[in-house]
């Protein structure tokens, strides 16, 4: 009942699928609060990360907070509010500043970058790229905004942005609540499309509300990118059921060094170009072309863990 209106559009199966997904939102500013609100109402489980307290200047655009919430922790107020909106979803919150030591907090099915600084964005990018997690970058200032889907294997955040100390800040340049809600709505919409693997945007989108210009910019991988250079191909794997549906299979375009793999894993059978391995009590078949076949394992998290292990050693 609760989701009947959106189910008409996305279908029952898709609704069941997103019900089991977890999206991590980094930053509960204008983008993060609106995104959390939309996602909670759409029935998606959430991880919320922010270390800030609410102040009066937030209320102009951070639309789940009220005057009563001033000086309270953002994540706790957000959790209380969203649980009143939808008690069916799970919400985990962390009242912490995301840094390199607690980065694994964002481990989820998808990450929304709603931060206000470049440093955190580069951290998210690296973590997501390494762990094969898609993330949607979004930013808004004044009456302009940008979103970009960062899909493992494709161009990453580091391919297009340079790290500079100074960044334009909303407290100096201002921001309208119309651009933040617009951008975060787009961001959520893309996130759901990515989770459903359905027609998600591959271009970077820039919106300017002063003249209603919407630009789509094609982004290519930067061959000199330190994050995805060289490691791009092994991250560029897709997990899929084989043709007859018997096994889950990962493919890459990069050959594996079987010599290194022989030394590091328990080899059950060795047919030169194909090895049958025992990894964590799972039978895994790999071949030199970079194909990994899981004979019985269906747990995708475990599959990704094992695959990452194999690719790291066999690269």
């Amino acid at each position, binding site marked *: 009942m609760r989701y009947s209106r959106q189910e008409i559009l996305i279908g029952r199966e898709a609704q069941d699928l997103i019900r089991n997904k977890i999206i991590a939102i980094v930053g509960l500013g204008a983008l993060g609060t609106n995104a959390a609100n939309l996602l909670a109402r759409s029935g998606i489980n959430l991880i919320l990360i922010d270390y800030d307290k609410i102040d009066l200047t937030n209320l102009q655009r951070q639309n789940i907070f009220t005057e009563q919430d001033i000086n309270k922790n953002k994540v706790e107020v957000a959790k209380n509010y969203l649980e009143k909106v939808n008690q069916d979803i799970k919400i985990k919150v962390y009242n912490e500043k995301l840094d390199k030591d607690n980065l694994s907090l964002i481990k989820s099915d998808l990450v929304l970058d709603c931060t206000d600084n470049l440093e955190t964005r580069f951290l998210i990018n690296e973590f997501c790229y390494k762990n094969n997690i898609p993330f949607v970058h979004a930013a808004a200032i004044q009456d302009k905004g940008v979103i970009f889907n960062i899909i493992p294997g494709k161009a990453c955040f580091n391919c297009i942005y340079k790290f500079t100390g100074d960044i334009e800040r909303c407290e100096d340049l201002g921001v309208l609540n119309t651009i933040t809600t617009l951008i975060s709505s787009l961001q959520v919409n893309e996130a759901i499309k990515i989770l459903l693997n359905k027609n998600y945007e591959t271009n970077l989108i820039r919106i300017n509300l002063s003249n209603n210009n919407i630009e789509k910019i094609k982004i290519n991988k930067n061959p000199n990118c330190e994050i995805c250079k060289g490691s791009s191909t092994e991250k560029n794997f897709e997990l899929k059921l*084989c*043709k*007859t*549906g*018997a*096994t889950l299979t990962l493919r890459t375009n990069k050959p594996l060094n079987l010599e290194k793999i022989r030394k590091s894993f328990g080899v*059950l*059978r*060795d*047919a*030169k*170009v*194909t090895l*049958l391995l025992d990894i964590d009590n799972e*039978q895994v*078949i790999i*071949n030199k*072309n970079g*194909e990994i*076949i899981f*004979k*019985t394992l269906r747990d995708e998290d475990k599959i990704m863990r094992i695959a990452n292990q194999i690719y790291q050693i066999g690269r």
Partner: protein
Amino acid sequence: MKALALLSGGFDSPVAIYLMKNKLETDALHFSLEPFTNDIPEKKSIELCKKLGIKNLYVINHSREHEEIVNKCDHRYYYVISRRLMYKVAEELAKKLNCDYLLDGCNIGQVSSQTLSNLSVITQAINIPVLRPLLCYDKDQIIKLARKIGTYELSKGPEMCNILGPKHPHTRSRLEIIEKEESKININKLLEDSLKNIILKNVIKT
């Protein structure tokens, strides 16, 4: 007259067996590649025998032999060399069982390893006649027949493909080259080992 049918569990061989059913008594032989595949092909073969009224199904685990071939021979000839060995094994078993023929579901034009030149080199490994009732059938005809005789549903299910095979097998082979490749392995030893591994599954008729 009696035939020993090679039964993979796929679509073709059951249809071939069906077409010859009224003319021959038939036993079946299945080569299993476990653990390089799962146990589904073997299970399918058992179910197919039930469906086709075959009482005796012989199963040979051939993974060690295939492993040896992959390890020692030119990988692009894998299908031809491994099939030659399988047919030799089948021939020996057929003799023991007093079979007059081998029977298989081979048909040309389906996969790159089943070309006339490859089939010819494979068949030259043995001296027993091979019946190939599907030789010139196309896939659509075979599937249509499989549906009609009720083996389609049994053959269809999820199955791991043979992951030992090369991506691009040779579509043409010459006997001299294949024999040279085979000299890198001890065929007689592999043949003997295979015959030691035979398990008879008594398939109960349903």
